[in-house]
């Protein structure tokens, strides 16, 4: 599979995601945000970090980059677009995904391992995942997903909720919600299920000697 990681000024997980993709045999290219053309690619990744320092609203300025028009075209043709953390925030600001990511409920940056449960296995992203829960790391200040009732209903009806924060045994409870997200939502898909935005970082969990190797399941599923 061919992938392209876009680098914005202030991206800082671009190297990490590129390493993970390469490790699982994606043919990956890096692309600077000022470019006006996407290389031939199956997957476009908007990486984590603090594009433009998170100034104004997270993701808002990167969403105005030249390359974003091309990313939108790519997704309209059914191409895969993955936004992780700041990438998710950018997807929201471009309007490719609904809702908003507010500041974490306690107004603190949170860096910790969480458990997430895949709540939709019909997308290209998660179809091969057998694990009941995945232990992934989150590291963000604005991951508190919020949307009005209508949007939430739509997300539920169309099966667009991809990931929810849960406890180690898969229970979706208030206690296992790290940031105040509505319905414990950690990631969502668009209606066509080719665009995924999520807060956790699977790319930080791709080594058996580090705290979790559960990123592996995500990349392997995506590859097949």
């Amino acid at each position: 599979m061919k992938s392209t990681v876009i680098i914005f000024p202030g991206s800082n997980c671009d190297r990490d995601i590129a390493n993970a993709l390469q490790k699982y045999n994606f043919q990956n290219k890096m692309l600077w945000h000022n470019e006006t053309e996407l290389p031939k690619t199956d997957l476009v990744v908007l990486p984590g970090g603090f594009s433009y320092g998170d100034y104004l609203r997270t993701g808002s300025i990167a969403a105005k980059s030249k390359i974003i028009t091309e990313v939108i075209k790519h997704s309209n043709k059914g191409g895969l677009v993955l936004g992780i953390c700041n990438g998710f925030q950018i997807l929201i600001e471009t309007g490719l995904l609904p809702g908003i990511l507010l500041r974490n409920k306690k107004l603190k940056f949170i860096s910790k391992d969480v458990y997430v449960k895949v709540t939709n296995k019909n997308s290209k992203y998660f179809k091969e995942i057998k694990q009941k829960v995945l232990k992934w790391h989150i590291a963000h200040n604005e991951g508190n997903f919020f949307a009005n009732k209508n949007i939430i209903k739509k997300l539920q009806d169309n099966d667009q909720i991809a990931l929810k924060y849960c406890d180690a045994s898969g229970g979706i409870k208030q206690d296992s919600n790290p940031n105040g997200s509505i319905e414990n939502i950690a990631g969502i898909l668009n209606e066509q299920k080719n665009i995924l935005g999520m807060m956790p970082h699977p790319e930080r969990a791709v080594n058996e000697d580090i705290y979790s190797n559960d990123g592996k399941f995500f990349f392997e599923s995506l590859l097949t």
Partner: protein
Amino acid sequence: MKISVIVTLKKEVLDPQGKVIQQTLNNMGIKNVNEVRQGKYFEIEINEKDPNKAKDSAEDICKKLLTNSIVENYKIIS
């Protein structure tokens, strides 16, 4: 000329910052505050002498960049 703009979250949107401020005030012993909502304020120096044109410019800037119209409102105050 200088244009000032206020951007607020729509009523229905949760405001975690406002909420924490209200709680903190409460903890500090200031008990008469029922609600706090936090927004943004911008001062934009526009190279334009005609106030109407400057305001039009500011409107444009608010729509194109300063606000996310799904969750925010703006008001040009001067």
